[in-house]
């Protein structure tokens, strides 16, 4: 059995004697006998470190690690610089709690202040929080921020990530907000439908850009329509795309949220990830989560503290660090366009009508599952099947031209044999 208790059995007896007790059991005298677990837990005996390692390696070995991945849909395999791993394994940072005691937490607080600055810079917003759980919960929190006394309805684009849509729906079930889904048309949010349904009860609209299919949305027109109706626009964005694409602020959004995982976090079977949230100044006091502010100590020295705590109710946060955005954005965009063009040329028609970022949808005669199975045999994780014949592909800077040419070659073969 492994144990992290330093005190020996003899020491424990001495400590018990010091407090006037004779056995460890006496410590639990207040627990009613009916609920004391006398027979012990029905779980296996403890293991040594080496056995735990073996067990874990065996489990990890049962997963297939794809050397080549063309799947995104909310989780993106970007290159994580070695330095990021070194920073996030520093024990002083990893083993600390929420920085309540600012005097001994300046490192964590300053890193969050810097993070807030970078998120504001990327999104064009005035204020960022210290982050929330992930992109989907950030979307849900963003919509909750829009709520006003006489406005209790949320409209969510059908072209947003399914998990973001679902999280918004769940939070609305909690706080009793009404929810309607804005249908998609030609792969983007249906602007005409939206204009018709923007009434005085709408508090907020959720739009993702680039959307689930990689398409760029008519975001400017949507923002104008939303504001004309007196509602607020929450924009879900991919932080990598902000290296080249217009910022949510430039499009006219009031709140920017998104999944921070592409900024140096591994795929990790879905978590832990990071949700970023930023907004215009007028909404600052509605922004949930922790916020770090700059101030001074008694000697006039600059320091950082958790601030605006009056509006904060929750213990939540994750953090990441990375500073390699625009470079990745260009590579991802270029790779996406390259692959899409190659696939289009061999009969996997690109469904995206206009410009897209690093994700796109193909439609083919060949069943999606046949394609994906064949790719899997070559150790390639292909795009996500959306239905029988449509596949959502994703490229990042990790995908080389050689890998993309290989996919094209394999798909050509599959098509020829079908």
């Amino acid at each position, binding site marked *: 059995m492994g144990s992290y208790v330093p005190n020996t059995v003899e020491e424990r007896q001495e400590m018990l004697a010091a407090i006037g007790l004779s056995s460890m059991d006496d410590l639990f005298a207040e627990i009613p006998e009916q609920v004391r677990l006398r027979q012990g837990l029905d779980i296996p005996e403890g293991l040594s470190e080496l056995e735990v390692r073996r067990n874990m390696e065996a489990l990890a070995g049962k997963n297939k690690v794809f050397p080549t991945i063309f799947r995104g849909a909310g989780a993106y395999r970007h290159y994580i610089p070695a330095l990021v791993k070194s920073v996030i394994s520093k024990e002083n940072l990893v083993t600390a709690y929420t920085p309540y005691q600012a005097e001994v937490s300046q490192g964590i607080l300053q890193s969050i202040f810097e993070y807030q600055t970078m998120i504001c810079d990327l999104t064009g917003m005035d204020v960022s929080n210290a982050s929330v759980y992930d992109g989907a919960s950030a979307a849900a929190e963003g919509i909750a921020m829009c709520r006003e006394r006489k406005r209790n309805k949320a409209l969510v684009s059908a072209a947003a990530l399914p998990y973001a849509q679902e999280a918004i729906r769940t939070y609305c079930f909690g706080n009793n907000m009404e929810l309607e889904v804005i249908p998609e048309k030609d792969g983007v949010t249906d602007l005409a439908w939206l204009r018709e349904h923007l009434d005085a009860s709408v508090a907020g609209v959720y739009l993702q850009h680039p959307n689930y299919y990689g398409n760029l949305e008519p975001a400017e027109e949507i923002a104008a329509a939303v504001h004309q109706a007196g509602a607020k626009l929450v924009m879900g964005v991919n932080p990598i795309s902000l290296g080249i694409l217009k910022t949510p602020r430039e499009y006219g959004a009031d709140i920017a949220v998104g999944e921070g995982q592409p900024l140096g976090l591994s795929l990790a079977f879905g*978590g832990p990830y990071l949700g970023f949230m930023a907004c215009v100044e007028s909404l600052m006091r509605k922004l949930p989560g922790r916020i770090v502010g700059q101030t001074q100590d008694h000697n006039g020295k600059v320091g950082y503290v958790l601030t605006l705590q009056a509006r904060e109710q929750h213990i939540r*946060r994750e953090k990441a660090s990375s500073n390699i955005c625009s470079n990745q954005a260009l590579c991802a965009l270029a790779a996406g366009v390259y692959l899409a063009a190659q696939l289009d040329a061999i009969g996997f028609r690109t469904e995206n009508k206009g410009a897209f970022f690093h994700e796109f949808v193909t439609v083919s005669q060949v069943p999606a599952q046949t394609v994906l199975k064949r790719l899997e045999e070559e150790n390639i994780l292909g795009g996500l099947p959306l239905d029988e014949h449509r596949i959502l592909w994703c490229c990042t800077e990790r995908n080389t031209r050689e890998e993309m040419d290989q996919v094209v070659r394999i798909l050509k073969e599959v098509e020829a044999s079908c």
Partner: protein
Amino acid sequence: MLIFEKSRAGRGCQILPPCDVPEILPEEREQRQQPLHLPALSEGDLSRHYTELAKKSHGVNDGFYPLGSCTMKYNPKIDEEAAALPGFTEIHPLQPAHTVQGCLEVLKTAESLLCQITGMDRMTFQPAAGAHGEFTGLLLIKAYHVSRGDTARTKILVPDSAHGTNPASAAMAGYKVVSIPSGPDGCVDLEKLREAAGDDVAGLMLTNPNTVGLFDKNILEITEIVHQCGGLCYYDGANLNAVMGQARPGDMGFDVVHLNLHKTFATPHGGGGPGSGPVDCKALLAPFLPSLLVEGESELSFRKPEQSVGEVKSFYGNFLVVVKALAYIWTLGREGIPEASANAVLNANYLMAKLKPWYPMAYDGICMHEFVMTLAELKKETGVSAMDIAKGLLDWGIHPPTMYFPLIVEEALMVEPTETESRETLDQAAEAFHSLYQAAKTKPESLHAAPVTTPVTRLDEVEAARHPHLRYSFEG
């Protein structure tokens, strides 16, 4: 110095090879106009920047961290290594099920062990933290009542000693919070509970042991009263470290539980995340669980619960945190789990006995894994507050206890040593507390100025809130 002030145009890191496909740009009208100010530093300077920040942070690895209610125990290194295996970190969440059997087995095994520890039937790992778990658990209660057409239940009962997140989560779930007072013994006032229990009550949220560090001995009566009125009982697992392997929430009459893997199961807090707040429940609530449940024996697969409340975040929760917790539970096993809780309680009682002569306890008797002292008398006598003593501890290299919580105790300090501290550490801490007590009596002004050895002294929080300065300004 901020990273932005160290930035110099033209510097940077060589991370990626040149793009090997034709570069293109989006149309001008889709391009960002606002310049980007991401910092440009050499790798060496960047690395040094974060080392400098790390030096200005105090973690469990830096010293004693008796922060009440937060269970700051040692974070085992094997757990970190397990979670860093490429067979876990490089797995896309949307891979086909037959290529992620190892991940599914992690979830299935962790679920079965944790359900055994809590006395529950099914579990979701999707919630990312304790407060997120509370919100999820309350949604289960809400969905349960709604599914029965029982929509008049609009209230959640919460004792006045509860964690602040309890009422906040209840509000997020659309409930009205009714506060139940504690009796003079620190436990739930049964009479007041009976008065509040009616057919408009959806449920009760309770921490046991409670936030004053006492096990509520009337627990079976409490859950019975709530069930009698048709409500369900929610167990806030923040304090499970005191009783794991000794007693189970499921046997106490609770219907739904959230756990803090980052407290009880030794995963690091990361300066505020990532955590993991899985929710487990009795079979009657299982159909409403969010996310996907792992099913099957040899070939594992995901299944969506039929009346699911929906997703509370993306994918299946903070998976790597679950890996760490599983490694921890495997290490401790059936003997190690109760050994950990018993020693957490022993350490708390040992330290409490040492401090009692100088710092009055808010409640008498044996405590569980933590205890609450009240410094009201000391403050009246010397002007030295709980805050002053806490700040004084910083100069001893000790992270202070939780301050001014629970709210029902005046000038409160809540101390939770955890089981991973040795007797010497507790003795040294007692010495520090004693010395501060003496300083309070003889030179109280020295404590108002504490700390003096930290990178900064006490910070002006009022100014920070009055004139929010929340990001660096590039305009200078």
